[in-house]
């Protein structure tokens, strides 16, 4: 294996490949920072260019774009409160408050160090632990996916700033919206209001832009455009060194988030969009001061950005070993591998080791390249956004939201839906409903529905088909995890209640 790593390093060290890693990472960061343009899209867009290339440079370029894109999503999350890709949803929670306080640069440095750490962690797992870890992808069948979805929903107790009831209502709304379109199982047409374009359901990106970006723009406008700077920028001396030091001291956070990202990356059907939220939740839950999360705590940014970049390496573990793409961009990379005549499996690590190891190492290199480019670019971008008066910033972002929501499926209906969600989202803010639980419901709805219906069908041979949901030990582990995660916020207040008979209102929930 070490021979292969050396071989890979040798290939990678060519001028052409190094240049491709650099160019790919930078291009990916730009695409990722634009709301609506996702990693999947960026990778698909580049596929034709790789035909003219040999397998190694082609894959190196795709990998670098992918890595850069996932990281780039943090910029818009931090600076304009809109996740650039679904993998950065959680980054808005603490990143944007930081930027509003003039600590945008600090947040970006935090995201950068976290992303690089997570990215490298995922790649190390990919290189050294692929065969044993790939088995995780196969352990999860339909019943387990249902419970994964349930577990994911329990995050709401963290996500819902404010009322838990409103959080769960938002999530239910999201799940309901996820049922629009053709049923994933059964093929029934549901809630399309007779519009053929709605058969495809509501795209996550469309809702993401609508619920996050539009209300933000409307808020800026309603505050009065003339006198208001959207994001403040304060030049602080030594911010780079201080922040890097601070982030690196969050050892547990970095490690936990990386592991969460890698494992969720391995699961087909769950990617960065879920990983960053689970990671945020865990960081908050294990924190000594969970109440500070959401007010501009760098720990939150580090948790989400570390996890989503760990997904990159993690998602390729089942792809390389079993031919199962762990995340959507991996499916495209799989297509490229097939067209190049490379078949996933053991031979990829032996006879084609030159290609495989070069590719894996280039992913790691991309994660390293992100650091200088991100820190320098992040400073420029923060300054740019803060120097831009709202009367330019708002229309500029407004145009991006339209391009982004159209580009995802080349469909005009999506633009209208995005605007509609924008207005609804703005209204819901006043009622105390937050966007994250709604989006979480939309992400998890299909996972739960698929798992539930498939498990029911699988259970035809049991006395009651529902038994299929409870047979495997893994299901029980997930059920226990869900119960624990759901009840966690109540445990503290409950303890207090027993200590001080007479009762205290369960403050942890509110």
């Amino acid at each position, binding site marked *: 294996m070490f021979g292969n790593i050396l071989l890979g390093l040798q290939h990678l060290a060519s001028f052409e490949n190094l240049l491709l890693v650099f160019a790919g990472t930078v291009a990916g960061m730009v695409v990722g920072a634009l709301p609506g*343009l996702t990693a*999947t*899209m960026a990778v*698909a*867009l580049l*596929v*034709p260019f790789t*035909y003219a290339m040999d397998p190694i440079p082609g894959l190196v370029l795709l990998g670098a774009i992918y890595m850069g894109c996932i990281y780039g999503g943090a910029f818009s999350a931090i600076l304009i409160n809109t996740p650039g890709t679904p993998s950065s949803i959680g980054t808005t929670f603490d990143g944007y408050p930081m930027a509003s306080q003039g600590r945008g640069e600090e947040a970006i440095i935090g995201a950068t160090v976290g992303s690089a750490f997570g990215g490298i962690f995922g790649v190390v797992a990919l290189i050294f632990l692929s065969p044993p870890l790939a088995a995780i*992808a*196969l*352990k*999860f*069948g*339909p019943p387990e996916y249902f419970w994964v979805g349930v577990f994911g929903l329990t995050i709401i107790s963290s996500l819902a700033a404010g009322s838990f009831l409103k959080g769960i209502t938002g999530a239910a709304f999201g799940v309901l919206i996820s049922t629009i*379109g*053709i*049923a*994933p*199982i*059964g*093929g*029934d*047409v549901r809630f399309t209001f*007779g519009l*053929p*374009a709605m*058969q*495809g*359901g509501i795209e996550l990106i469309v809702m993401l832009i609508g619920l996050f970006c539009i209300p933000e723009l409307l808020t800026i406008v309603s505050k009065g455009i003339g006198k208001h700077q959207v994001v403040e920028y304060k030049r602080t001396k030594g911010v780079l060194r201080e922040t890097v030091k601070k982030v690196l001291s969050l050892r547990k956070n970095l490690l936990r988030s990386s592991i969460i990202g890698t494992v969720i990356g391995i699961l*087909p*059907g769950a990617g960065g969009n879920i990983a960053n939220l689970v990671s945020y939740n865990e960081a908050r839950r294990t924190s000594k001061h969970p109440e500070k999360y959401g007010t501009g705590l760098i720990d939150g940014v580090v948790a989400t950005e570390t996890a989503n970049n760990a997904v990159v390496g993690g998602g390729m573990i*089942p792809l390389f070993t*079993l*031919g*199962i*793409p762990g995340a*959507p961009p991996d*499916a*495209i990379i*799989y*297509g490229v591998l*097939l*067209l190049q*005549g490379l*078949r996933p*499996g053991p031979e990829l690590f032996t006879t084609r080791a030159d290609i495989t190891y070069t590719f894996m190492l280039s992913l790691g290199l991309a994660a390293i390249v992100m650091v200088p480019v991100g820190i320098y670019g992040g400073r420029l971008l923060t300054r740019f956004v803060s120097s831009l008066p709202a009367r330019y910033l708002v229309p500029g972002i407004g145009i991006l939201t339209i*391009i982004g929501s*159209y*580009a*995802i*499926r*080349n*469909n005009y209906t999506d633009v209208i839906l995005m605007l509609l969600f924008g207005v609804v989202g703005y209204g819901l803010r006043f009622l105390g409903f937050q966007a994250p639980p709604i989006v979480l419901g939309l992400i998890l709805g299909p996972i739960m529905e*698929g798992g539930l219906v*498939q498990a029911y*069908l*699988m259970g*035809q*041979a049991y006395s009651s088909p529902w038994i299929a949901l409870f047979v495997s030990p893994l299901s029980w582990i997930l059920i226990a995890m869900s119960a624990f995660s759901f009840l966690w916020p109540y445990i503290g207040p409950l303890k207090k209640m027993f200590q001080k008979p007479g009762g205290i209102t369960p403050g942890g929930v509110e």
Partner: protein
Amino acid sequence: MGRNGFLKGIVAFSMVLATGFFLVPAQADEYPSKPLTYIICFNPGGESDITARIQEQPLQKHYKEGVVITYKKGGGGSVGWSELIKSKADGYTIAGDNLPHIILQPLTRGNAGYNTLDLKQIYLFESTPNILVVRKDSPFKSLKELIAYAKEKPGAMTVGGSGSSSANDLGTQMLNKAAGIKLTYIPFTGSGAAVPSLLGGHVGALMTYSTMAVRYSGDFRPLAIMSEERMSVLPDVPTFKELGFDLVEGAYRGVAAPPGTPDDIVKKIAGIFDSIMKEPGVIKKMDENGFKIEKMGPEASTAFVKKKMAEYKVLVEEMGLKKK
């Protein structure tokens, strides 16, 4: 994906502006003089996408102005097809179309957004027959053994596949009927999504496409294939016909144009695809990936679609798949 279309759209638009002022509108004899937009109605990385990607380079030799592959996914293809029929019928916008999808969707949904015959068939270039596979370490060594087990325990044998009312779904139901058994069909959101469930042992078998049996030849044991004859890449896999079940079913893929596209242009596009599908490089890649090459021009593919429409209509009613 979409950005590609968007940017190329701007390029195309400016080219139209540049040329449009000075030249008379393009005639069929000048075809092709503009970039081709090739819509894929499914996710990147799937069978339709891989085929289009194999064709992309050779297509560029014919379309000097460029070939743009864009994705309009959703609804099992229906979103893209309902957009296609509204596109300009000048032969520069085509979409990959799949059987049985384009027949079953209008048949089983109230309003799929298009009618099967709205899609003007240009060329049908490949098929992927249904193939029944089990895991390499499965106790079932032959179709006979699997059927015997299914007879013993009705409903206990689970068979995963891609989608509901799909070729995989129909194939499983047809086998159930022909063999007098009850296999429980479990739909997944694509052939790729069903693979881990078999590898992980969550379903007992897969009714999938030939491509998957080739791709996962190290992990799967194919029991029988629903093609007329054995496939050259899978020489040891018997057909259902050989084993006494007259079952031929699978997915067919081709390209279609918006209704009203002039016949002579359709013929020209068909000619281009015909020459591409005869290129040795393309044939090799199609074979390697487990696709069966078909060569049906505009008339042949339209006739084929009509024949299948009649067939599926009966099937759908028999199986009670029709909703609304």
